[in-house]
């Protein structure tokens, strides 16, 4: 079935260090979405990337979509304790030709930030 590989599974950083998580798909994607789940919370949408090579920024977060639209990354500059949580990428599930808005989620990267 459709798979999206996300690495690393865990990342421990000191506050102020940078952090990056990567997603790779076996197929060319129409778009990719990123979500954040705080400890004890639920996933919350961060951003959607659509265009080849697209780069979007949200304050200290930088999101990139690969030129071939098969991979994506999320980079956080100078992490803060408020960045802790699990970051998921998600790609549209196109099996059977109709997605109905289904997403296939990566396994997530759990970020811990030590003050």
């Amino acid at each position, binding site marked *: *079935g459709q798979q999206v590989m996300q690495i690393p*599974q865990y990342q421990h950083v000191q506050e102020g260090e940078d952090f990056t998580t990567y997603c790779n798909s076996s197929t060319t994607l129409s778009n990719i*979405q990123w979500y954040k789940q705080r400890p004890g*919370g*639920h*996933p*919350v*949408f961060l951003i*959607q990337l659509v265009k080849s090579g697209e780069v979007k920024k949200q304050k200290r977060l930088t999101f990139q979509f690969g030129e071939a639209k098969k991979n994506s990354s999320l980079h956080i500059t100078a992490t803060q304790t408020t960045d802790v949580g699990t970051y*998921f990428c*998600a790609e*549209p*599930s196109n099996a059977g030709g109709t*997605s*109905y*808005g*289904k*997403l*296939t*989620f*990566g*396994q*997530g990267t759990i970020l811990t930030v030590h003050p």
Partner: protein
Amino acid sequence: DVKVTQSSRYLVKRTGEKVFLECVQDMDHENMFWYRQDPGLGLRLIYFSYDVKMKEKGDIPEGYSVSREKKERFSLILESASTNQTSMYLCASSSEGSTQYFGPGTRLTVL
């Protein structure tokens, strides 16, 4: 503000019990989803619905069924709960091609 609510935050049931998890969204979304989340396994899709009374299996439907009698409500049913169904259950809704909005989750423990 989009709101997705789930009937319980925490639930404890016994093996063999029938369990109902309710999800309600207030954004008139066509699509609704049930996931379970387990450590190291991410979010796995159990069932989804793209219209009233319409449903399709996700990746792990075994042991579950669903009901969507009204557009805003999507129920997950465990016909006979088992210990391996202890998990966090998340409901989400979306319009076609757009982001998914998640409920707060129900942490189910089956003893």
